[in-house]
């Protein structure tokens, strides 16, 4: 059993190394390792039964992450009303699922989509939404405050949900949450529960750096520095609710869940 644990740990570490910046990968691996240690702590006389239990759990894990999106989509339907305007940032499959479900249940709403430079996530998302016949409006990232008046709610996904209840997401999310908060618009986050990570950033610089080179289209003089960080941290006071497969949570519950899981 211990040997299996060690092997799994090695596998998990190498997985994490493959993409050192992905928080959900790290968090997912940690969660599964946590489950492994918990299982091995229980005394199973038969190694095979323990092993089969782990395999079962792993498969369930995969299933859960697929199902999670559907659960989250169902939970968030109550919050999308007819005639509402939703602002979205970044390309999140969970948010897409939410909007898809809403469109399929014949709700009338429109979506404001930020361009999402440098990844051009906005373009991808607007493509998808256009296929669903949802009215989409593309904005440049700087137009967020300009259009925030007409918006009813902000919907974002998350790369990772941290212990304080805040989220780490694509660069620009913090900005949008700040503007929305100051204009009293709710900010909803859709994230699966395996994204809960045991990180606790105090400010923007307190995270592991994830850099993504930006192509400006024109050559930049060598003396000019470019901020290439790909993600930012949104503190919990700017978030209204988190839609997860565990239910609709407030940001302070994240720590509760993490403590119960890890202690």
């Amino acid at each position, binding site marked *: 059993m211990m040997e299996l644990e060690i092997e799994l740990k090695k596998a998990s570490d190498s997985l994490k190394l493959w993409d050192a910046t992905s928080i959900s990968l790290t968090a997912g691996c940690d969660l599964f390792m946590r489950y492994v240690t918990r299982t091995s702590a229980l005394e199973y006389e038969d190694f095979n039964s323990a092993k089969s239990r782990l395999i079962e759990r792993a498969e369930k894990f995969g299933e859960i992450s697929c199902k999670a999106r559907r659960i989250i989509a169902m939970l968030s339907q109550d919050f999308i009303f007819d005639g509402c305007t939703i602002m979205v940032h970044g390309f999140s499959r969970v948010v897409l699922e939410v909007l898809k479900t809403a469109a399929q249940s014949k709700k009338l709403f429109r979506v404001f989509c930020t361009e999402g430079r440098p990844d051009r996530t906005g373009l991808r998302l607007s493509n998808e939404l256009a296929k669903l016949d949802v009215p989409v409006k593309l904005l440049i990232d700087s137009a967020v405050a300009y259009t925030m008046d007409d918006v009813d709610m902000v919907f974002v996904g998350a790369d990772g949900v941290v*212990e*304080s*209840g805040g989220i780490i997401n694509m660069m620009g999310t913090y900005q949008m949450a700040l503007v929305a908060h100051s204009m009293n618009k709710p900010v909803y986050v859709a994230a699966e529960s395996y994204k809960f990570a*045991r990180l*606790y950033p*105090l*400010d923007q*610089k*307190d995270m592991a750096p994830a850099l993504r080179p930006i192509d400006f289209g024109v050559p930049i003089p060598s003396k000019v520095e470019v901020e290439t960080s790909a993600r930012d941290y949104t503190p*919990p006071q700017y978030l209204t609710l988190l839609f997860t497969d565990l239910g609709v949570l407030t940001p*302070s519950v994240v*720590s*509760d869940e993490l*403590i*119960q899981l*890890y*202690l």
Partner: protein
Amino acid sequence: MDARRATTTVPRVRQVGFFTPNAPPAQPSRTHSFPLDSSSPPLSNSPVNNSLSPVMIPPSRHLSDNLVHRATSPLPVPEPSAFRRPIRSHHVAVVGSYNPTESLLGSSPPLASPSSRVIGDGEFSEESSAGWFRRSNSAKFASSFSGAFDLTSVKSSETGGFHQVKKPVVAQLKEEKSGAAAVVEPQINKGLSSSSTKPLKEKTTKAERRALQEAQRAAKAAAKDMTVSVGVSTSKPVKKQPAQKKDAPPPASSIAVSDRKGVERSMEKERRKDIPAPRMQFDDKSRVEKAKKRAVVNQSEARNRVELFRHLPQYEHGTQLPDLESKFFQLDPMHPAVYKVGLQYLAGDISGGNARCIAMLQAFQEVIKDYSTPPEKSLTRDLTAKISSFVSFFTECRPLSMSMGNTIRFLKSRIAKLPLTFSESEAKASLCADIDRFINEKIVLADNVIIQHAVTKIMDGDVLLTYGSSCVVEMILLYAHELGKQFRVVIVDSRPKLKGQALLRRLVGKGLSCTYTHINAVSYIMHEVTRVFLGSSSVLSNGTVYSRVGTACVAMVAHAFHVPVLICCEAYKFHERVLLDSICSNELGDPDALSKVPGRMDINYLDDLTNKDNMQLLNLMYDATPSEYVSMIITDYGMIPPTSVPVIVREYGREYLWI
């Protein structure tokens, strides 16, 4: 047992200060002062509603919840209350003289059997009977002779067994509330059924409760004169307090509300009496007088006391130490180690939550090592009583901190959990090992874990601010320096203690670059600061940090400048209490320390003014920092947001059970 508990909590009339055999003292209500999670009994040890203001507590909800829970989880209930009882400090006959009832208690094991026969759960009955004894014991403490009477009457009435005792209780109730009694009886008869407690609550109106109170008072007057006088005097302050309290309930509150509050307050008083860190209302003259009679340390009260803080003890400093020293050879029952630590508290040689806890635990270790069970007594009960008397001595020297309260609760639960098969030496060895383990795990190792977590938050180029002198923060800074991180430290200090100077000396000695300033310059210096590290005396359930006075200011300024505030606190200091302000619960220091600046004779402007009537000096020791100013709390359980403190208390409380 259930009957008695049910009946006392039902009328919600607290008989403050004395107990009848039929209506056991507030023990049940105390333990039920907050929603009990039946899986976490140790939490019931520290009533969440310790706070003095009834505004914070909706008692009926708790009581009704607890009635339900009590019925379903009988085991934990008597136990914690039993511990709580003897600690009720100023009512404990401290100086050595073992009360006659104790010998009675020791010699009456057969009392356990009737209850066990009836209830059927041997362990429960044993605990409950133990608790029963302790209740009576402390009843004795409350009013000298009533306890003895209570016990004898209890003994006589209990010989028949469970049902016999129920009858007087039920009879008493029946006089007052026919409807309620009908509900109570089936409940009692069912034994551990939990259903109809809520209707019970609603049926008792204010008039009925009043009537019941009067009738009970009359009944007690008939039985024992002594207890009546005590009861009247103690129930009077109950009524006085609503009037006295500055921030009284809104003026629109009806008499029902104030009556309720009076009842609540007496309930809280009961609860308060039983918590490890008792907070006696010091504006109640009669109780203060009683406390003084029993006190070991003769303390004379300060003359000019601020009205708002009259509920806190304030004594003349300077007279206590010589007085205590002179009594050294007369205090036979006092263990020398305890005496020494008490003196150190009084003189201020030991200060700081961890140091005080460790000193107290080590003194108790000595006590346990030198302890030998007197004949005809059980080790658990006797030792617990002794510990309680020592705790009240400590309280007189210096009011207990919340972490010390938790520690004492832990120790008492360990004593109670000693298997009966243990011989005396085994029990003593086990207790000493437990204490060692507590100090090691909860303080020493916890500090190491906190340091490991905290240094991950220190980057090169940081400017760290700290206030006062916290041992954990000092360790963090030294460790980060050892790791080679480049940072500088700003130490903010304040009068009158000026603890930061010692910290400054130690840090500069180790080679850190430090800046030193006083608290009036904190907003000036805050713009340079990148992180604020603060220690704390305790963290409460709503995320409020209870720490040295001045911490709240520093945290507030840091928040205004968007500087993250990190509180470093071991998990054993967490408490289920909720504090909304710094007034309800605090400690008053020596007011003369404010008027005098050591070494500066020329600025003695206040010298002749200190005794004037319109001059009141207030030297607060603690303050409460709201949770919105706190970014993160670093504990041995990791880094948590302030909203997760009750989660840790819930989990940590459970661990208490597993130790």
